[in-house]
């Protein structure tokens, strides 16, 4: 594994391990509730009501990074669940339903008081129903009304014109769904959500994302990439799961300042950077070394992934008079920006141009069907913008069909034939 170049990366990893240890102690020793939720559920509500929330996607990435996913997924397949079904959202379920099949990280997930998911992809209701059954716990579902109007340059509307971005009937529905969620959480904790506190928290989320925005622009503008993509992700995701907290804002600032210092000192993540790459799709959690594998051979550095860029463009909401409406406007279309045409292609190309990208690797995740949609539009838009594209067939958590040697050879050949020539 490539060495960590930033102190903030080490701090982020230590924070997450400590946070999870504290969570397990709270649940087992103090019998206090926690929630297991999808990444696109508004964490802020849980945190303000003192119900810590664990992200399913974070847990999945951790299981994959610890190389435990194949054992759990093989157990799921042996149980008759078809291999083609989404692994990213279900490897966590597998660690619970087939707990003896592998060794879950850090002692495994304790039983949550509540599972919560937005019904985005078709499989979410089913995966979370099975998971709730395995835990013997309650599932709270947030229905997901579909967008009919999709302004192509959505990121120009999110901050100030979010009421235009989200159709009124969808905004109203999602705000109502969040009200129901708050009622449910309040009944678990006996606390009451203070709307002024929510407004303050969302303002701090804005602050955090503004810092990430400044960091993103530093990286985009620097002559050579000052921080590897993998370290960008590690810092951003540790922060996003507790976004708007004092630690998160402080850590975002620490990360920014460290990047700024590297830019000021002319420090590059990779000496001799020749090619700037972007990764389109979720992270390849079981083989993060892949992202540094082309530095020595080609001077090719992964500069961009969605993780740092998405926060500033998708989270910031100004005009917090009605904080729940603002939160609903973020929740209503959250990860669809990343997959649906025209949103995903327009944004990806704009980001590629801003970051002076030379070539793009686009994930083709066989089992994550909704996430796999839209990629033809993304790939064609990138190529039309003069950016060569290499599709990468991979599952982000399931390493069983991944051939790291062949994948690296394919990328090297792509760089040699389509990018360097």
């Amino acid at each position: 594994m490539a060495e960590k170049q930033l102190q903030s990366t080490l701090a982020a990893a230590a924070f997450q391990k400590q946070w999870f240890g504290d969570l397990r102690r709270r649940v087992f020793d103090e019998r206090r509730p926690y929630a297991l939720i999808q990444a696109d559920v508004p964490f802020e509500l849980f945190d303000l009501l003192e119900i810590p929330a664990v992200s399913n996607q974070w847990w999945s990435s951790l299981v994959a990074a610890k190389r435990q996913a194949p054992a759990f997924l093989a157990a799921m397949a042996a149980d008759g669940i078809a291999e083609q079904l989404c692994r990213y959202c279900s490897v966590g379920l597998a660690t619970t339903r087939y707990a003896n099949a592998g060794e879950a990280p850090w002692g495994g997930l304790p039983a949550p008081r509540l599972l919560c998911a937005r019904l985005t992809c078709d499989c979410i209701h089913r995966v979370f129903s099975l998971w709730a059954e395995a835990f013997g716990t309650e599932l709270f579902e947030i229905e997901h009304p579909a967008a009919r109007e999709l302004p192509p340059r959505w990121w120009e509307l999110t901050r100030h014109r979010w009421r235009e971005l989200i159709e009124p009937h969808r905004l109203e529905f999602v705000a109502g769904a969040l009200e129901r969620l708050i009622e449910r959480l309040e009944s678990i904790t006996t606390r009451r959500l203070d709307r002024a506190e929510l407004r303050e928290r969302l303002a701090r989320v804005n602050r955090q994302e503004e810092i990430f925005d400044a960091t993103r622009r530093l990286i985009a503008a620097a002559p050579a990439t000052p921080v590897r993509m993998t370290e960008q992700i590690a810092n951003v995701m540790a922060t996003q799961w507790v976004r708007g907290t004092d630690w998160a804002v402080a850590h975002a600032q620490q990360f920014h300042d460290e990047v700024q210092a590297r830019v000021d000192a002319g420090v590059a993540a990779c000496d001799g950077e020749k090619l700037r790459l972007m990764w389109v799709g979720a992270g390849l959690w079981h083989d993060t070394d892949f992202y540094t594998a082309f530095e020595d051979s080609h001077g090719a550095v992964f500069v961009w992934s969605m993780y740092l860029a998405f926060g500033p463009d998708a989270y910031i909401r100004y005009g917090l008079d009605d904080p729940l409406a603002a939160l609903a406007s973020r929740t209503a279309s959250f990860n669809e920006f990343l997959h649906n045409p025209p949103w995903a292609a327009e944004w990806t190309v704009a980001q590629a141009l801003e970051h002076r990208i030379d070539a793009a690797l686009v994930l083709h995740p066989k089992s994550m069907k909704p996430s796999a949609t839209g990629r033809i539009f993304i790939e064609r838009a990138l190529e039309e913008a003069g950016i060569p594209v290499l599709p990468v067939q991979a599952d982000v958590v399931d390493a069983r069909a991944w051939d790291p040697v062949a994948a690296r050879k394919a990328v090297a050949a792509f760089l040699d034939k389509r990018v360097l020539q």
Partner: protein
Amino acid sequence: MSARAIAELRAAFEDPFSALGRDPARDRRTVLMSWPSVPIELVHAAGFLPVFARGGDAATPAADDVLEPDLFPNRLRQLVEAALTGRVANIAAIVLPRSSDPDYKCFLYLRELARRGVAASLPPVLLFDLLHSDTADARAYNADRARDLSARLTSLAGRPNRADELREAIANANRSRAAARRLHALRGARPLIAGADALPLLGAFWQLEPERYASLANAAADELARGVPLEGRRVVVAGAPVDTLVLHAAIEKEGAVVVAELSPFGGCGTSADVEVAEDPFPALANHYGRESIDARLPVDALMHKLDELLDAAQAVVLSQPSDDASYGWDYPRIRALLARRATPHTVLTGDSAGGAMAADRERIRALLGSAREVHRG
């Protein structure tokens, strides 16, 4: 009369989608949909003919160029192929329900292809965003979406959007449903009709003018009721809902009889009437939210529907094609349900619209052999 009735019903199931593009006048009165989670009563009340995109074995080169492999079912590939080749240029509208991610993505893709000028001659492409959650908020949302779709369709038709016409369309469709239920009652423990014969007669409900369907289906039921019960293992088809006869034919070729299918095109699609209420929109939306069999129907509701079909079943065939992202998750529950009922099953992985693969045919044979053993035991 009855032979002609059966032939007309069969044609009404098989032909309308493939006939698009041949008769501009008829096309102009047609609304094309991707799945029967769109209330056809709204289409009828607006004065249009409903037609559903159906899976088939025709090649789809234009669609394959813009749709990722293994993500979209055959029926959507056929729909996009028709859209990109100008075959639906004259129809009144395309309506895609939010009945699955692929249907929704198909809506987005068509809109984007039009925006990019790839699909130059598309009719209006509309979304019917039906939620399946059984909450007051979701029910109100669905009623508003039904109102909205009704307004759009009547506007396209140049007609007033009148509740009394919609109530009449609901009553007419209910009479058709009653006739379809008569047909479906001929299946079951002593089936008088093979599944591959029954499915088109039932599925025609969705595409025929209601009075015509009721008349033809009642005539067909009268005739078929005089038949003798068919021999063979009684099979229920579940999993990803079928929209073609291919799977039924493959099963029945092995000497079995398909007596029910968990598909809106089969008996499940007409098993309950829509309430004829003062405000027809909530009634219609509630019905489709509760009864539509699609990838977003909550698993408890789906399991309940399956359980209701199993009384007559001696074996169950589950379809899990490679584009399935949803139904496969139900397998542990279905397996447990079938174990409780001591009903053998098999899982097929081929495209149910594209012809049974050799491996699937072998699985069917093995299943029917084991079902025979269970029956003897």
